[in-house]
């Protein structure tokens, strides 16, 4: 008799357990992903040329004035609301940027600001000095290349 009742009680417990069943999922996956992101190391190429769609070195020997002119037009429209050449504004001044960074680095910063600000130590460090985070202005690679030509012209 006692066993019968305990079996019945058992079934009721099981029912209760089934009802409560769907517990919370663990946060392990998220925390793993975060710590992996922190640990991930950049390649030498990425350290010099940034992280993003531009995965080969870009060299600028002689300035193409037509391309630089197009770059200025794009810069005014898509970058100029936050960057000036000669002074700090929402973002850092860019008048001499091509003396400090490679063309590929600047293109990756334009084309992939979210990841650059999250992962690249130089971008992270500069970014921390400015309260507003750089936004993605959806330039095409060609437009970003033109902007770099313009900035190279202004850096000389």
């Amino acid at each position, binding site marked *: 008799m006692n066993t019968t009742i305990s079996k019945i009680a058992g079934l009721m417990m099981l029912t209760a357990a089934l009802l409560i069943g769907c517990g919370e999922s663990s946060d392990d996956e998220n925390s793993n992903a975060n710590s992996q992101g922190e640990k991930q190391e950049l390649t030498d190429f990425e350290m010099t040329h940034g992280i993003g769609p531009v995965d080969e070195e870009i060299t600028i020997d002689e300035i193409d004035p037509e391309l630089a002119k197009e770059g200025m037009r794009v810069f005014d429209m898509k970058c100029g609301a936050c960057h000036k050449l000669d002074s700090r504004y929402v973002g850092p001044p860019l008048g001499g940027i091509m003396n400090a960074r490679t063309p590929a680095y600047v293109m990756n910063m334009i084309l992939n600001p979210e990841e650059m600000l999250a992962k690249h130590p130089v971008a992270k460090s500069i970014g921390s000095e400015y309260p*507003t985070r750089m936004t993605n202005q959806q330039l095409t690679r060609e437009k970003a290349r033109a902007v770099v030509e313009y900035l190279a012209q202004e850096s000389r």
Partner: protein
Amino acid sequence: MRKLLKKSLLWPLAAIAAIGFITMGCSSNGEFGSSSDAAEKVYVAPGEHDEFYGFFSGGYNGQLGVYGLPSGRHIFTIPVFSQAAVNGWGYNEETKPMLQTTDGFIPWGDAHHPELSQTNGETDGRWIFMNENNTPRIARIGLDEFRTQEIIEIPNSAGNHASSFVTPNTEYVTAATRFSIPMDEDNMQNMDVSIDSYKENFQGTISFIKVSDEGHMSIDFQIRMPGFNYDLSHSGKGPSDGWAFFTSYNSEEAHTMLEINASKNDKDYIAAINWEKAAEYAKEGKGKMIPGEHYRNYIDHEEGGIAKSELIEEVRVLDPRELEGIVYFLPTPKSPHGVDVDPTGQYIAAGGKLSTVIPVHSFEKMMTAIENEEFEGEEQGIPVLSYDSILHGEVQNPGLGPLHTEFDNRGNAYTTAFISSEIVKWDVETLEVIDRIDVYYSPGHLMIPGGDSQKPDGKYLVALNKITKDRYLPTGPEMFHSAQLIDISGEKMQLLLDFPTEGEPHYAQGIAAEKVKENQKRFYEIEDNNHPHAAKSEKETRVERDGNEVHVYMTTIRSHFAPDNIEGIKVGDEVYFHVTNLEQDWDVPHGFAMKGANNAELLVMPGETATLKWEPKKEGVFPFYCTDFCSALHQEMQGYVRVSPENSDTQISYSTGQ
């Protein structure tokens, strides 16, 4: 024995408890077996997308509500016929012309029947049309940006209810007069006559609006009709493509106490219109051009994003008394409301709201009856076909007050019964009732995604209920209308979910999300911004005075306005803020609110320009700010305008960051 007895009493008790817990959950109305099963069917996990978009007319709110199905989540509201302070629709300078009519600017509308564009009888995800009943209009909403792109007014119409239904390749969208009005014999112009001259003077019109490949609407022709009330419509498809069907009531031609006086005849009519033939007549120049002033308002981003209003002065009218073969009346009991064509295009079901049966006409029989001239008579020059010749059959015991029918892809029809608060499932071929389910309460329309097209998705049905009462936490005397999601994939219908809607949805449409979601604009390319007052860079920002008109060419980006300090404005000026959002990122609009503006805010999408008019009445310094929390420094996104007395000599000046 005692032991056995105890066993036999306790075990079933435990088993019932267990089964009961697992299957019943906490169902309140008990009309379905398993609420956990239902919950699973409507559950869309965080970050996941719904399988269908649902587009629900907002009725007297004039807008179009967008819902995810099966979750019932309200995702968006598209402003259409009513001003929307939330984003400046109908308040800002760009969109005001969209609400222009021959009665002037109309800030409100009564939205009824959304209908998705179709290609080969299937929803194609390009546009959704919606009619306005009070000031007869039809809107076209682009599903690339979820915005109203065009609104055309319907002339020679009073109350546009049987609208806006499309033909299978969106050749046309339809409109018809709900209320007949007096029209003179020659030019169909409204007349100053006694209302009791109804039978002598009142007439109706049915309009066919041509839709171009780009979506532009133009009235191809109107058909002069007897002075009945035209209620709903659906186009033929498959074998019946080329025809459209319109219910009418008040064949009694009553003009007062219609609830009694328009309910006397045993049968009213479905008007069967051979639109293909009518279109041929129109193309041949038949009928005549009559005065028919109406506005076509449209807004096109590529053309600058400022709505334009175009006044069209004439329309072509076809008279079925003179042009043979374009209109036939199908006798139909009794004050029919909905008219719905099944996916095969063979059957035409009518919701005779006072009838005890659902009459279903056969298109094939209708064509034979026309050929053999099986007429019962004629009504004001229009042949009336014999009921018995065209009838496929009648659905018996379909519930009380049948209104609307939609179809699945398995040969079943589903009809709402308003008075008995249920949905009745019946077989289109055999006309037998297969299943019925209670809904809460009093359904009007119903919607199955694709359920009025040739390719229904026969998975879900939404009942659009007119009465809410106790379904949600009470909210005073007014409650939002309740929609109910029903699983129709099995033999028995299963109620899954209640969800509230906005305004009063009349009809709704549903479409597989994959047909729409890939085509979404995420921002407007600033380079392609052709707005004449755009400032496409901070270098272009400026303030210009022209008499007492001041134009501010302003830009926004996270997190500042340029310029953000403006002086030289005077009391009595008309100030236009042309705000260009330089952002190029998805879902980063900036708002613009000006203290003392008598209209609304602007909500400017990335890459777009919008204009707010402000007429300062007091001197002082007044702030403006961004209303959309755009960044961590959103609270810093502000500026000041100094307003000087009317006769002061403060010069225009402006700056940013100085």
